[in-house]
């Protein structure tokens, strides 16, 4: 397997120049994600309009897979509602974990993550942002001013 299958140009680009990177203030919801295995940490900020994600940003320190995945995720879900995000999450999960999953066209640039499934130790790097997003979405449905939700890949 060629390393370029994992580190595709899209991934390297989003790692080097992550989109929607930084704090979102004010935010309706935020959640912290942590991958204790490699020390990756990221925070997802959301601004909601009803069920729809009006704006999303993230910040944190992580490996290329983790940073690029979060960057690609923010681009993919901005403007989408919770139901659409749930569908996308299911597709991404299959893409990252199932050997024969085929990236359908609705995934767009997210399909670049398909190489990750050949590296089981790295799947959590790519999925951390999505679990963190879910926590932030759940939190947005509840009270706003509590301490941020936290998720861990362990």
């Amino acid at each position: 397997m060629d390393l370029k299958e994992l580190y595709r140009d899209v991934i390297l680009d989003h790692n080097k120049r992550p989109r929607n990177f930084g704090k979102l203030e004010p935010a309706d919801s935020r959640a912290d994600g942590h991958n204790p295995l490699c020390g990756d940490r990221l925070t997802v900020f959301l601004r909601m309009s009803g069920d729809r994600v009006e704006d999303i940003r993230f910040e944190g320190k992580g490996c290329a897979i983790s940073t690029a995945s979060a960057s690609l995720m923010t681009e993919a879900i901005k403007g989408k509602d919770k139901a659409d995000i749930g569908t996308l999450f299911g597709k991404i999960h299959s893409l990252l974990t199932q050997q024969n999953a085929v990236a359908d066209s609705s995934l767009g640039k997210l399909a670049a993550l398909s190489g990750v499934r050949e590296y089981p130790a790295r799947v959590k790097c790519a999925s951390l942002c999505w679990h963190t997003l879910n926590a932030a979405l759940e939190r947005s449905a509840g009270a706003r001013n509590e301490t941020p939700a936290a998720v861990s890949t362990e």
Partner: protein
Amino acid sequence: MAATASQAVHGPILDVERVRRDFPILDRTVNGRPLVYLDSGASSQRPVAVLRAVEEYETHSHANIHRGVHALSQAATEAFEGARERVRRYINARSTKEIIFVRGTTEAINLVAQSFARPRFKAGDEIIVTALEHHANIVPWQMVCEQTGCTLKVAPINKRGELLFDEYVKLLSPRTKLVAIAHVSNALGSILPVKRIVDAAHAQGAVVLVDGAQAVPHAHVDVRALGCDFYAFSGHKLYGPTGIGVLYGREELLESMPPWQGGGDMILTVSFEKTTYNGLPAKFEAGTPNISGAVGLAAAMDYVESLGLDAIAAHEHRLVELATAELQKIPGIQIVGTAANKASIVSFTLDGVHPHDLGTILDHEGVAVRTGHHCAMPLMTFLGLPATARASFGVYNTEQDVRSLVAALGKAREVFG
């Protein structure tokens, strides 16, 4: 001990090509490339001598120990107690009563925390650790602090990864009940001045535990010369099996400690009214132990001493020097941990490439290194790093392994442009 090295089968200079033939796993490939194993600090590989000893024991001698008069039980008991004597000699303990078999370093430290510290420490008492400890030498003490109300103090280090000895001495006081330190830092390779640390602690009446997990494979350890009260290490970083380790404790301290776990083997008599405990070392070895693990550990110690610890230390020192020099030639590489006194470990980062990505790319080239926080998150926080990549060397590593690492790092720079 120079005498050990001069008696070594392979002579004082390590014949690495010959050593490599003792480790069958080194013949395998990873991702289509020859394995370059630079992760002995996490777990070393086992020589045939260890694999055979375990197999021999399991095939011909296994039964439960200290129970029954039949031939196999006798053979197993002799093998297990023979291993204890082997360990005693390896670290120069006074008596086999001072050698407690445990699962590993972590269990050894927890035993001391729960059986020595917990019953006698109270609010106002202090435990000192250093800023470079492995979680296994932090968390058990935090638990004791929660349980007893005593306080954890942290002796600082500098950015090179050296203990600030004067700062450590300033922390010592009559309140200090225990000092728990690594002999060799698992994340940076720094060798701590154990003897001086022990002497300073003893001057205040404190007891000292040494986490020797990273030290025993690389240098001769003499617990009596160090003067420490407890010394903990694992078999699997010493070319032995997993699931076996050793707690050395000075006999009078172990005598004064209550049993940690209750069960078979640790008792003399049991009735529902009154149970009397067995003497040392059985008092701390409830239940059937890892017999074949102890046999394998003894074989590993035989093997290591046959190579000669002085020869091993010299060989690994050469590799550390070479790796440090070669890595520094690569643009963007920072060596993390530059203590004057280092053993067998080179931690580093590469600008623009997260250590986790480095680990994947190196693995792709057949090079196995550890990446991450090395179970030393407070140390990583102090250094301002989320993680590092760590190459750690064993008896079987060669200069070619270092060159393979350098080439693989070149590949990483290529991928990340």
